[in-house]
């Protein structure tokens, strides 16, 4: 819930992995008509916002959305909505479908407290349309698994979704210990590199990552 300048409120709705089924779309349409100004805004992070909600109806609209299986989207110093491309579902370059991993990371981390907001993007191939390198955490499908970028820097490549969850958890814990309130993960990495993280044997260097990316593109 975000206060707007005109005294009304914006109710942000979480959209796991950026997918909404037809039923949720109907619920959103109904909510926008009944409680908001009849429109929804598609956020830059693949979420949905209902604008123009009067202050005294905010609780009511949240209740209505929950009843229909929709959760509020996160704001403030928390893990924000995870963005992902459709990957191998529909893209000629896609190596894998990022949706199951995006939904998993949403379940495990969306809304979790962090020293400042944390943005996570998942790309289905090294071309990186969801801009994993520009997010606090980026996860990129590569030939042998998922490459995790921390603050734009290649950190590690792992084979399974379980391992991605473990790595994200470790990174967020180390970041929370290292950063003062309000310092973004990306800023921290810009300042001190990855020195606050434990070195990993399976880590890949930036140069290896580049070579790998080129191989993958060649195969596509």
């Amino acid at each position, binding site marked *: 819930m975000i206060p707007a300048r005109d005294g009304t409120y914006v109710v942000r709705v979480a959209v796991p992995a950026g997918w909404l089924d037809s039923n949720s779309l109907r619920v959103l349409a109904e909510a926008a008509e009944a409680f908001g100004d009849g429109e929804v805004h598609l956020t830059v992070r693949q979420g949905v916002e209902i604008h123009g909600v009067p202050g005294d109806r905010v609780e009511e609209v949240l209740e209505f959305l929950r009843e229909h299986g929709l959760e509020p989207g996160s704001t*403030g*110093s928390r893990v924000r909505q995870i963005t992902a491309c459709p990957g191998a579902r529909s893209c000629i370059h896609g190596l894998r479908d990022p949706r199951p991993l995006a939904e998993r990371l949403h*379940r*495990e*981390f*969306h*809304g*979790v*407290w*962090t*020293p400042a907001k944390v943005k996570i993007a998942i790309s289905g191939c090294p071309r990186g349309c969801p801009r994993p390198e520009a997010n606090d955490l980026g996860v990129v499908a590569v030939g042998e698994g998922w490459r995790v970028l921390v603050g734009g820097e290649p950190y590690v490549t792992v084979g399974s979704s379980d391992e991605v969850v473990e790595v994200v*958890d470790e990174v*967020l*814990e180390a970041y*929370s*210990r290292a950063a003062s*309130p309000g310092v973004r993960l990306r800023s921290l990495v810009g300042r001190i590199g990855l020195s606050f993280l434990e070195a990993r044997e399976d880590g890949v260097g930036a140069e290896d990552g580049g070579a790998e990316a080129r191989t993958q593109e060649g195969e596509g």
Partner: protein
Amino acid sequence: MDTPLIVINRRGVSTKDVFKCVLGLRDAEVDTYFKLLELGEATVQEIAEELKLDRTTVQKALRSLIYMGLVTRRKETRPRGGFHYVYEPVPFEEAKEIVLRALDEWYEAVKAALEDARSFEPG
């Protein structure tokens, strides 16, 4: 001079409310921390059953509390193989220190902002 609301309603303000307000915690998070204080240590499943919350909500609440420094975890091997985490709260006195520090930081920041304010700016 008007007395701040929190002082007027002092009797209605619980320790949980203060933790929520000062640290910006959610209900599930503050409930999880206080449940852990009561239990001493527990697994996600145990806390979820005690609080009648779903496992995902408790798992996320625990992550928030770990990142915030209010809870620690250790891996424990299961008798039949594999492992699970056991969560422990930091002692209440330590948590109180964290809340007091956050309150002091907030007070200093608001005080500095007020002292720097030169005039009334509408909007």
